[in-house]
């Protein structure tokens, strides 16, 4: 068993690192402060193929593997959590389901511009009354001739308003299960920005990842072509779950990056900061804290990379399940991110509480990784369900 990266993966990491340090880091604080979506950075990422890393070349992607994509989100998030999640939501939640479940025509029309980064993607499942419990979804789609008519709303949608292409989950049928209980059957749809009846509600004011655009999506008699049904009618739930499995690897990578970024800055700072005549890095408390932080980061990294490797196997055989590995990676990485960034702020002392210092932002950014794309509790449900089946 070899835990070292191949030379091409090393080179890809160096590329992402250099790009993140040069093009993203100088704007991270401003992005957070102003809550401006970093359009210029996204354009640069488009130019260098960062928006379609795991998409096949045939469809305008880079033809790389999920590990390379994971490292990209990780390196971006080391310097800016906002930039990390923009790439993650676009790739995992929009490009990936079209690549996995789309028809050749859908791939040509939607996946190509997404993979080339000409268009930005988003995904809408969550609603005011439905998060973890998907049965609460109220958004409904009715087939009318050769069009689907969507009505309802989605909330907390990452890349909302900025994105051009949205994967929307809506219920299309209500059936009775074996016990005579009524159950909604869901379907997945591809909806383009600008479609009449599709509008945006308010922009959310968030604690962290403040540059990422989080919007409510509103559908009022929004008519889309029947050809925009993704996968089969009634199979939207498995598509959504599959999409979130992949998304969790992206968020795990974001959390990992945040933890690593905070650790790097803390190491630098504790070597410089002097108290009682010596650097605080020379105090045993600091040393032990840093050792714990680094060990947890390394454990999270191994889980995240393992999940990415499992996903690669799935992309080859379309059989391997990576659901549990993705849940474990996200659970671990998110909790490590929260713990490490909190410890980082503590080691920075008063300066850690000041917005000029990156660790303050990183601690706020880390919190969301324990919540979105399945809370830590949902990850525990996924993991334990597999243990007890």
């Amino acid at each position, binding site marked *: 068993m070899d835990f070292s990266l191949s030379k091409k993966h090393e080179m890809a990491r160096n590329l992402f690192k250099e790009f993140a340090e040069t093009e993203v880091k100088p704007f991270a604080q401003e992005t957070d402060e102003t809550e401006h979506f970093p359009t210029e950075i996204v354009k640069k990422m488009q130019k260098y193929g960062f928006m379609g890393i795991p998409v096949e070349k045939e469809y305008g992607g*880079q033809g790389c593997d999920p590990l390379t994509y994971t490292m990209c989100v990780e390196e971006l998030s080391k310097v800016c959590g906002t930039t990390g999640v923009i790439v993650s939501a676009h790739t995992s939640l929009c490009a990936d389901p079209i690549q996995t479940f789309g028809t050749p025509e859908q791939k040509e029309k939607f996946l190509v511009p997404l993979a080339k980064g000409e268009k930005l993607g988003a995904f809408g499942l969550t609603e005011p009354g439905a998060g973890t419990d998907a049965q609460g979804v109220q958004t409904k789609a009715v087939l009318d001739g050769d069009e689907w008519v969507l009505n309802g709303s989605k909330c907390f949608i990452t890349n909302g308003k900025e994105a051009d292409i949205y994967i929307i989950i809506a219920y299309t049928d209500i059936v009775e299960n074996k016990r005579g209980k009524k159950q909604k059957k869901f379907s997945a749809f591809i909806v383009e920005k600008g479609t009449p009846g599709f509008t945006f509600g308010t922009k959310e004011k968030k604690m962290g990842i403040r540059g990422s655009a989080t919007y409510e999506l509103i559908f009022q008699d929004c008519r889309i072509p029947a050809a925009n049904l993704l996968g089969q009618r009634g199979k939207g739930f498995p598509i959504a779950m599959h999409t979130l499995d992949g998304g969790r690897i992206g968020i795990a990578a974001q959390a990992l990056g945040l933890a690593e970024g905070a650790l790097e800055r803390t190491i630098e700072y504790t070597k410089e900061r002097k108290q009682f005549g010596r650097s605080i890095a020379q105090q045993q408390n600091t040393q032990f804290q840093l050792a714990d932080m680094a060990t947890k980061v390394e454990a999270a990294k191994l889980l995240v990379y393992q999940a990415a490797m499992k996903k690669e196997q799935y992309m080859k055989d379309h059989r391997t399940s990576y659901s549990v590995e993705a849940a474990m990676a996200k659970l671990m990485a998110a909790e490590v991110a929260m713990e490490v960034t909190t410890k980082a702020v503590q080691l920075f002392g008063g300066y850690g509480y000041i917005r000029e210092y990156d660790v303050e932002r990183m601690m706020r950014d880390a919190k969301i990784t324990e919540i979105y794309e399945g809370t830590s509790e949902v990850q525990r449900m996924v993991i334990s369900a597999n243990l007890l089946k």
Partner: protein
Amino acid sequence: MKIVVCIKQVPDTKGGVKFNPDGTLDRGAMLTIMNPDDKAGLEAALRLKDQYGAEVTVLTMGLPKAEEVLREAMAMGADNGILVTDRVLGGADTWATSTTIAGALRNIDYDLIITGRQAIDGDTAQVGPQISEHLDIPVISYAQDIKVDGDSVIVQRQYEDRYHEVKAKMPCLVTALSELNEPRYMTPGGIFDAYDKEITVWGRADLKDVDDSNLGLKGSPTKIAKASDKVRKGAGEKVTLDPDEAVKYLIGKLEEKHVI
């Protein structure tokens, strides 16, 4: 159009420099990067490729690990890579290096050869012009802009406070400055492609029309008396003053040091 860009893997000075007992650099033990002037030369070639269409070949001479710098160049968009490596070529100075590279270049077709002005490890700026002499083709050094005009190149050659516009018929050699452009990043897909491609590896036997007496450490007329890492100077003093006060302050300092 066929363009060959000669590139060099050089020590990343951020990582510190190590020497062999004979005073030459211990290249195996250091972190490395693509020499910045060479990278600008490669970018210039890739822009000519984007604009006019061209086949870009990158060539380097070095240890087997110099293959990395060729892969990097290919991940940026170069089409082919050639590595010239052989134990007998080790320890070469600029004369032996240019002899070796010219010997390799005699095997391939080219319209334009681009090299960096100079490498950050040796800072000689000799290899590019020497190659052109060996191959008997024109050279334009210190290019800050390169354009193709039919079968010629028009180059802005940097010259102290001005630039000269020089035209040369191809085949010719141009040496590039790092100010020439902002090199592009690699792409992730480009990296994967670069590792799928074969790199051509040539040794001494593949060099054309060269004499052993001009190769390697033995064929190098340069003798290094002593080599050392850069001595770190103490941090300077930074003061913020009005112009009048600043002048007084500086005069005071110069008097203090008995300069005036």
